[in-house]
C-alpha cells in the first residue's frame, strides 16, 4: 500500500498520490515535455463517477490532444480550475500546482500495481 503522498505512475504518464481516501491525479514532467506547450485542459466535472481504465478528461497541446486515464475507481471530488484557466501551469509545475483532479476512492489497491517513482524515472527520463 503506497504511503501518504507517495506517487505512483502509469506507463501512459499519469501520476497518482493517495492521501487517506482521496487520490490526486496529474501527468508527469515527461508527459508535459512530450506534449510541449499545453493549450487546453478539460476534465470531467466534480461529482462524476469514474471507473479505473476510463478517461478523466483531455489535455491538448500545440502538438496533439491526449486522454488522461484513471487508474482508480471513485468519484471526482475536485477539479483544478487553475489549470483550465491557465493550461501553461501544467507545463510549469506538473507535479504541484498543475494537478488535474482529486478522486475519492474506496479501494486504493489498483495503485499497488502501478510503477514506483524510481522505476518510472528509469523508464522515462526527462531529457
Amino acid at each position, binding site marked *: 500500500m503506497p504511503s501518504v503522498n507517495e506517487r505512483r505512475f502509469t506507463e501512459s*504518464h499519469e501520476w497518482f498520490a493517495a492521501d487517506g481516501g482521496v487520490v490526486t491525479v496529474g501527468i508527469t514532467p515527461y*508527459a508535459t515535455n*512530450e506534449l510541449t*506547450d499545453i*493549450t*487546453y485542459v478539460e476534465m470531467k466535472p466534480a461529482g462524476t463517477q469514474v471507473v479505473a481504465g476510463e478517461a478523466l478528461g483531455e489535455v491538448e497541446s*500545440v502538438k496533439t*490532444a491526449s486522454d*488522461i486515464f484513471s487508474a482508480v475507481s471513485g468519484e471526482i471530488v475536485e477539479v483544478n480550475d487553475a489549470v483550465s484557466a491557465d493550461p501553461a501551469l501544467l507545463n510549469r509545475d506538473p507535479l504541484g500546482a498543475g494537478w488535474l483532479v482529486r478522486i475519492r476512492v474506496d479501494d486504493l489497491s489498483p495503485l499497488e500495481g502501478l510503477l514506483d517513482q524510481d522505476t518510472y524515472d528509469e523508464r522515462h527520463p526527462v*531529457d
Partner: protein
Amino acid sequence: MTPSPAPTAALKHTPLHQFHVDQGAKMVDFAGWDMPLHYGSIIDEHTQVRTRGGLFDVSHMGRLMFTGRDAGPFLDRVCTRAIQSMTDGQARYGIICNEQGGCRDDVLVYRLGETEYLMVCNASNRAKLLEHFAAVKGDDVFRLEDTTESTAMIAAQGPEIMPLIARHSTEIAELKRYRFIRKNIMGLKVLVSRTGYTGEDGVEVIVSTDGFVARTALKMFLKELDDLGDTVRPTGLGARDSLRLESAMALYGHEITEDIDPLSAGLGFAVTLPKKSGDRFIGQDALERIQADGPARTLVGLSLDTRRAARQGMTVRAGGNDTGVVTSGCLSPTLGTSIAMAYVDRAHAAEGTTLAVDLGRQEVGATVVGLPFYTR
C-alpha cells in the same frame, strides 16, 4: 497520454545539429532529418519571432542547382511561374505541378544568372522532384546538382532582424522582397535573400559548408549568436508551423498535395497563365480548365468558437451536412483564438458564413474569415 513511440534510426543531421543539441532542443524526425521542434516553448518562440527575432535552421530543405544552356527553359516548363524572365538576383515562389494540375511541391526559384538557377524545395519532396526532373528532362542541356548536403540554410525572421542587419550591411538591409545577393567571403559562398515563411520581415541565408573555411566560418557564426542575447533566439519547427499558419502560408502535405491544384489552394498569385514568353508548363492545361470552371472547393480561414485546436482531417459541416475538411489548425499564439484553414464547398466559402467543425467528441461553431489571420 498514450505511450510514446520508439525512436527512429539513422536520421540526417544538418550542419547546425550540434548547436541545437547544445541549446537543449527537443529533436524530432522531420522528413528523415533530426530537427529541433523547440528549445523550451513553441509559444514563446512564436512570440519571439513576432515581436523581436528568431533564427531557424532550415538546412533540411532541398537546394537544387540548375546550370546550363537549357536550365531556364526547363524551369519554365516545370514551374508555374515565369522563371527565365526574372532578373539576376530575383527569386519567385512557384508550384511544380503534375499533369492534373496537382502540386508536386511548392518551391522558391532564384535566378543567379541566365544559365544558372537555384531551387529550394521541401525536404519531403526532394527525392520525388529529382526523379520527376530526370523523367521530363528530355534533350534539355543542363546540369542538376543537389547541393542540399553541402550547404546550410538559416532563416532569420522578425521585426528586429533588418535593423540588426543594417548595422552590419546596408547592401543586405536595402534588399527588396524576393531579391537576393551573393557574396564570396574568403572562399565562403553566401547567398542572402529577403524571403521567409513566417509573415515577418527577414532574410534567408544559404552558405556552403564544404571544406575547412566554411566549417570554421559556421562555427564562428554560431558562437556569435551567444552574444545576441534576447534579440534573436533559436526557433524550432513547432513555431515555424504556427507562424506560417497565422500568415496563411500553404504547407505541403496540408494545404497542397498531389491531389490539390494551386488555384483551389488560393495560390493564384503563384500561377502565371499564360506566361508572356509563351512557355507552357506541365499541368497548365489542367489549370486552365480549373480556372475556366472555377474550383469546386476553396481554401478558407476559420475562426473557431473554442480554445481547442482543429486538426488536419477534421470534418467541416454546414447545417449538419459535410462541406469540407480541415488542413491545418492551431490555437493562434498571436490572436489567442483557435484558427484553421480548411477546404470547403464554394457555396459555404463566403466570409462570415457560420460553419461547424467536428473536433471528435464535440462539434464547435466556426466562422469563415479572411486570410491571412495575421499581417504585420
